[in-house]
């Protein structure tokens, strides 16, 4: 029993230590951070909010957070608009080819952005979106739509067909049955899709790095590593504070829904 707790504790320390160090360091005074012999895991001087104040008052951190939220929400809307009808069509009314097409759509989720960012930046330039948040809003659905369509197909398949048929016998049209019977039952699926489209787009790195160079237009995931590190100058306090503050809300959201994500990923093994 003790062994079990000890082993679990080791894994927890391994996973959480970098975040703990971020937390402590972002609350340390400059002098406390920059002395190699002082305990890096605890305060030797009283904690201070100086780094956090610097981050919020003297960098564009708030702007980057707003940019990130804006891109995330826009991607959520586009993803829902495309993935909900597609998933329903594939899961419910299409015949055998629905399954094949579903797998095909899922496979396109496996095409990594690192493969495509160079030619994609030309497409972005062609659309006149370079150096704007619009570039990211157009690009991110290329991975959120395939993934979320696949995820939603699973949810729609889990809703008994009889319920819909009963509603249609009761005089609802197909669309009305979909709105009044299917969508309310698929709520957990829709919520999962909202969360994943949002967290996937807030965490994205390479498209943002390749498409956006103006510092005022950056999202958090690239602004913190590129704007707060300038050449060889590391402002460790604000840098770590920024990384931590931006990470935690995304991580909390993600944790609530990770079981649905795993169900979606593992369902490729048995459908």
């Amino acid at each position: 029993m003790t062994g079990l707790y000890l082993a679990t504790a080791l894994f927890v320390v391994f996973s959480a230590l970098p975040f703990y160090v971020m937390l402590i360091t972002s609350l340390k005074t400059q002098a406390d951070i920059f002395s190699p012999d002082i305990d890096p895991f605890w305060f030797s001087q009283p904690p201070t909010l100086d780094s956090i104040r610097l981050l919020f008052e003297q960098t564009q951190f708030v702007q980057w957070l707003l940019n990130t939220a804006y891109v995330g929400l826009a991607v959520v809307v586009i993803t829902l608009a495309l993935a909900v009808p597609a998933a329903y069509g594939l899961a419910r009314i299409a015949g055998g080819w629905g399954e094949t097409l579903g797998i095909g759509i899922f496979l396109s989720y496996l095409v990594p952005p690192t493969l495509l960012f160079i030619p994609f930046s030309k497409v972005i330039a062609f659309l006149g979106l370079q150096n704007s948040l619009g570039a990211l809003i157009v690009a991110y659905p290329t991975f959120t739509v395939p993934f979320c369509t696949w995820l939603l197909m699973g949810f729609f398949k889990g809703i008994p067909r009889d319920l819909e048929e009963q509603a249609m016998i009761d005089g609802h049209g197909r669309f009305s049955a979909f709105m009044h019977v299917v969508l309310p039952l698929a709520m957990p699926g829709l919520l999962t899709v909202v969360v994943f489209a949002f967290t996937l787009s807030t965490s994205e790195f390479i498209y943002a790095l390749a498409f956006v160079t103006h510092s005022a237009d950056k999202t958090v995931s690239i602004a913190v590593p590129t704007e707060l590190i300038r050449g060889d100058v590391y402002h460790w306090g604000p840098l770590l504070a920024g990384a931590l503050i931006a990470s935690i809300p995304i991580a909390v959201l993600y944790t609530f829904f990770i079981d649905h994500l795993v169900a979606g990923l593992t369902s490729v093994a048995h459908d």
Partner: protein
Amino acid sequence: MAAARTLSLRQRDTRLAMGMVLPAILYIVLLLGIPIVLAVVYSLNDVTTGSPAMRFIGLRNFQGLLATPDFARAIGNTFLITTCTLVGVLILGTIQAELLMRPVRGKWLIRFLILLPWTAPASLSAIAWLWMFDSTFSPLDWILRGLGLLGHPGALFGDFDNAFWLGRSGLALFSIILVNVWRLLPLGTVIILAGLNGVPRDILEQAEIDGAGYFRRLFHIILPMLIPVFGVTVLFTFVFVFSDISTVFILTRGGPANATQVLPTLAFFTGVQGGSLGRGAATALFLLPVLAAVSILILALIRRREI
């Protein structure tokens, strides 16, 4: 009469389904398809950011790449990092999933903390590691010095006060693998955990009654039943690590002296910063056949087993 009606309903349904699926398909085909085609076109041409004109040069971008030692090194590093990460994630993930199967107090907090490396954005958590590996203030070095493994003659990690995690080529590669294992371990764990939860209890209980010990049950019943789940773990760990750019980009930028360069970072430095779009596209394109082959192979394996 009834059959004809059903048929026409079927047909109407199919048309409706196509209408619903079409917008998503169009979006994906246009915005993924065009860049893929462009990637191939670029890789066969001499294109730079400076001049918009393209000049067809056939396979010379690829030939040029294969002749440079940096490229060969990037390919080697990409495979080395991916393979080591896979092995680490599979072994540690199985252990961690086994541990999480048991009832422990404070399960929600433990879950949150264990999932953090995966749920936090990769480019932000890499910054925490940048500090952990700092050449002067590294908290890891502080621990090693405290343990007497660093900072005196004959110490395991050298007689300097610092280990220079990202400054020495072998150690830098190790650091990148460590961060990748750390980041993907939660994903592997939850996938394997889902598989463990799916192993029927009665089979295990029966085996226990029949006298099978813990390890016998683990190796003869549980692990064989988990093969599709391991397949899924390998698939996603492979795709995410093989194509990852943020870890190497933030930790080392491919240094010291290109020792940790991987294909995605090399593509970025060549194509975006260096301006040779053709060469950059060709570099990234090398990812495609491997990704396609591995994905199709694993999907075929795990989907066949289930039938």
